[in-house]
């Protein structure tokens, strides 16, 4: 049975630690002069992005190439998807090329679970609708770990549009698995009913409740959530009530954001430019984590017979 990475819901603490340890190994490799390793030579990774992405698509591509895999990128626009091909048929077509991994981003929750039924390849969820984004969560954990932040007992506050956020969903699961405490701070209209019970964690509508957070995780506020039939009256009011800037933080609080940022909306311009904000560290971790995930799925524990020795990674 092919292993896939579709959610972190069933991942144990050990599973996540394995990813983080592997990421560390690749971080070492990336310190070297030659940043390419032969580990996945001859393996095929297809990045199927049915929805726009910059950083996730780029980092998966670069991760595959650094591992010497043959990487093919398929985009929603300019492909047969635009001609009305179903996800099933697209996946069946890609499967015919016998890829080892298909990385999928799609606008619909559950798309990766659906796609995994039509391929023998390992499926990596690079974001499905508002459901999950497991590699984002792994890179968030890794970013903190690398900075020396202990995850056990850590207080994490997600601020903003939790309802539409796969980043928050996967992140909450991952942080809680690692022993952290999670709080969601958002307008009532942007919190799905049943959230606290469904994901675990506390819910608040008051931005002042970021006070005891060690990590303030600012979520992207999308413009289409405003206006007629919208979730909040205006960006101005949203920013006034929930925008995160230096004045709302105390020294030592860490700030994360999945990008892309709406400066002046969910995060102040000055905070966005503050080198202490972890945004660019997150981007850097992204490629390393995705190298670890690709490595783990292709050469990892289940297919031990084909396992490329880790020494070769560092070779």
């Amino acid at each position: 049975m092919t292993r896939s990475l579709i959610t972190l819901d069933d991942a144990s603490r050990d599973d996540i630690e394995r990813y983080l340890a592997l990421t560390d190994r690749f971080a070492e490799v990336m310190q070297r002069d030659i940043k390419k390793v032969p580990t996945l030579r001859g393996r095929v990774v297809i990045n199927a992005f049915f929805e726009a992405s910059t950083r996730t698509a780029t980092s998966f591509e670069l991760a595959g190439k650094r591992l010497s895999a043959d990487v093919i990128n398929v985009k929603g626009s300019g492909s047969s998807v635009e001609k009305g091909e179903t996800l099933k048929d697209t996946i069946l077509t890609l499967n015919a090329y016998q890829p080892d991994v298909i990385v999928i981003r799609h606008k619909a929750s559950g798309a990766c679970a659906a796609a995994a039924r039509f391929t023998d390849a390992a499926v990596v969820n690079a974001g499905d609708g508002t459901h999950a984004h497991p590699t984002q969560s792994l890179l968030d954990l890794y970013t903190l770990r690398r900075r020396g932040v202990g995850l056990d007992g850590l207080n994490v506050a997600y601020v903003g549009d939790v309802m539409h956020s796969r980043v928050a969903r996967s992140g909450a699961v991952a942080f809680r698995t690692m022993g952290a405490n999670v709080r969601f701070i958002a307008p009532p209209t942007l919190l799905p009913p049943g959230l606290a019970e469904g994901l675990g964690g506390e819910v608040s509508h008051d931005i002042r409740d970021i006070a005891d957070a060690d990590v303030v995780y600012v979520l992207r506020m999308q413009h289409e959530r405003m206006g007629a039939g919208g979730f909040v009256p205006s960006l101005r009011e949203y920013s006034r009530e929930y925008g995160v800037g230096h004045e709302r933080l105390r020294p030592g609080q860490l700030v994360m954001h999945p990008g892309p940022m709406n400066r002046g909306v969910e995060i102040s311009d000055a905070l966005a430019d503050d080198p202490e904000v972890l945004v660019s560290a997150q981007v850097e971790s992204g490629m390393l984590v995705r190298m670890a995930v690709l490595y783990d799925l292709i050469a990892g524990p289940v297919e031990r017979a084909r396992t490329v020795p880790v020494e070769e990674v560092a070779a």
Partner: protein
Amino acid sequence: MSDNRLLQKPGNPANVVIRGARVLDPLAGIDEVRDLVVRDGVVGGDPAGCEEIDGAGMTLIPGLVDPHVHLRTPGREDLEDIASGSAAAAAGGFVAIVAMPNTTPPLDDPEGLAKLQDLARTQAHVGVGFFCAITRGQKGTELTEAAELAQMGAVGLSDDGVPVWDSLTMRRALQYQRLAGLPLALHEEDPRLVQGGAMHEGPVAARLGITGIPSESESVMVGRDVALARLEGGRIHVCHVSTVESVDEVRRGKQQGVAVTAEVSPHHLLLVDEDVSGMDAATRKMNPPLRGTDDRDALLEALIDGTLDCIATDHAPHGASEKQLPFPEAPFGVTGLETAFPVLYTDLVRTGRLPLELLVRRMSGDAARVMDLPQPTLADGAPANLALVDLGATWDVTEDGFQSKSRNSAFLGRTLHGVVRLTVSRGRVAWRRPGEAPGVAE
């Protein structure tokens, strides 16, 4: 009662004697092990010359009735047609089914009804009746010609699939019911509260990142229509009740003397939103959605106390590829005719939570009553409408075992107790389980 409402293809009247089965007809007060004769399609009479069927160890029940199925005809005969849908019904022990009008185009005029009735007269294995739309095109604004449709034999009116969202139209339909007389079967849903939802709103939807359908989107409309039925002295039937709040509205209406009946589906009695975790639309996406455990438990309680009058499958065939879409994009609905009785027997009767007699009543006589259809009975002199069920036998629900053209069953993979060996509908043999029924010749 006019008899032009349930239609079935012609055939030779059955002449069989079923030996030694437990004959169970709760409405007629029959529960004994004995022989039962069907002579010229009628219960009772002389067994001489009749085909012998060994019913020892089996149970003979009045044929089941389903007031809510989708036969996809006209328009999507690739998913189901009258022949395949009624064969699925017969295989599930049903002798009468009533098809919803959300076809392509919707069944909303006398001409369309006449065409379908002609098809049923030549293709249907069991009695098939038709709902016509409450409003033209099921658009919720203009009433259909209900008086003529009633005279032609429409069983009832329904816009099932979509709600009659406009309160004034609903009121007019109830007023016009005083002329046309047809029961109104209501799909209760406030479209603005549903808005893009794909599963029950709650912790599981929050975790999965799937837009939720709040319970109140159903119950506010049940409340509205109970109030309007009271106002107009009308009669309503609430389709596929799924929430505790809706049960409360129906219960209150009944207590106040409003003519309201209601149905519940097997999947809402047995499954909950947690079962959606695998995000498999083929087996877990339906409207109304699978609700919480409190809802599920309240539905069973209400079925037992009679607040919910009957069981209806909401048999909704869909194609494999459309059901393989990502969860939010796939269509709503699961099939149900072939699994309804066995799965309810397995999960509710065998576990001691529902007496067999009550299950039979709720799936047969009570299901007929809510649409004013004749109640199947095993009493002497009645037209033979019966099912011979081997409750001791089991079968595996697999994709290749269905009479239906579609495979989107919520109970795929289950092993169920209760094999329907023989169904006699309106005096004719409608189903024999091939090769298995002892003593039954093809």
